[in-house]
């Protein structure tokens, strides 16, 4: 009888210990998942920014202002090399002044965008009529 009574007396102790262990284990698991997801977003952010800057520099590598024609016919494959393997991307170059419109779109449709990050870069461009316009490079990067 003493043994049975002792077991029931120890139940609250067991409950507190189990609750403590389970709450720590559950929280640790959730925090681990959250931090892992954050690290993934950080990597995407860095890749998107690097790609946007690389494309903007690639368009200006002639030294002076790029022309609209050179932007439309630009080969961005060298600029894309900064992106690590396993990432998909969509790059578009837009004219936002003096006229609105998309000049160039390049995409590597590997995989479907799940978690994705974007970045932009601005540069001036010489239009056909001698007017200096504004271009925006928009980049979307995702894990393929």
């Amino acid at each position, binding site marked *: 009888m003493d043994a049975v009574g002792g077991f029931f007396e120890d139940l609250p102790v067991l409950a507190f210990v189990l609750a403590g262990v389970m709450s*720590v284990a559950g929280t640790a698991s*959730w925090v681990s998942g959250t931090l892992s997801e*954050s690290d993934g977003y950080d990597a995407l952010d860095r890749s998107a920014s690097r790609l946007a800057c690389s494309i903007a520099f690639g368009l200006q590598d002639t030294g002076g202002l790029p022309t609209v024609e050179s932007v439309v016919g630009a080969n961005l494959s060298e600029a894309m090399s900064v992106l690590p393997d396993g990432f998909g991307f969509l790059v578009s170059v837009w004219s936002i*002044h003096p006229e609105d419109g998309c000049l160039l779109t390049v995409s590597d449709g590997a995989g479907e965008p799940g978690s994705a990050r974007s970045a932009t870069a*601005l540069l001036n461009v010489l239009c056909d009529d001698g007017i200096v*316009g504004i271009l925006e490079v928009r980049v979307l990067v995702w894990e393929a």
Partner: protein
Amino acid sequence: MCGKRRRDDGGQLALLDAMVFFAVSSMICATMASHAVNRSQALEAAALGEPNTDEMLSVFLSASVGASIGLEGLSVELAGYESFSEVLFLVSAMVMDGQDENLLEPVLSLCSHVLADLCAPWSPLLVLSAEADGNMASLLEVGEQAVSDADKYAASQSLGEHGGVGVVVTLVLSPVLLLHGLDV
């Protein structure tokens, strides 16, 4: 009798230890959760990203006006090839010379329109100031003054001197409040 009391004391001590263990584990959980939530909030804030105001202002000032504009009453006509920095300097000089600001409305309206496209999704405010002896005096403001207390980002650039007074342009960006248009 004595053995029973010793057993009760031991049980109470074990229960107390277990409660302390639970309290400590709860504190550990709260600390870990707080760290994770802070990291997530920082990430969400970074999702919009900090605008590169220096780049925006530099690109804007280097761009051409792009349209011929006649300023009635001032006998000034812009061909469209002038850069925004030249036009803003001209506008500042006119204001410093006492010209009516309303006559400059076509130029200021174009600046506001281009800036809105350039700075989206941020709300831009362009401030032209006169700087003399280290003191700044506002001459003109283009765009909407932000009413919220949210963080703002700014960049400045000198446009030159007029009559010994420096002209400084400042671009101030503030986040657009989506609920603002719903009168919430």
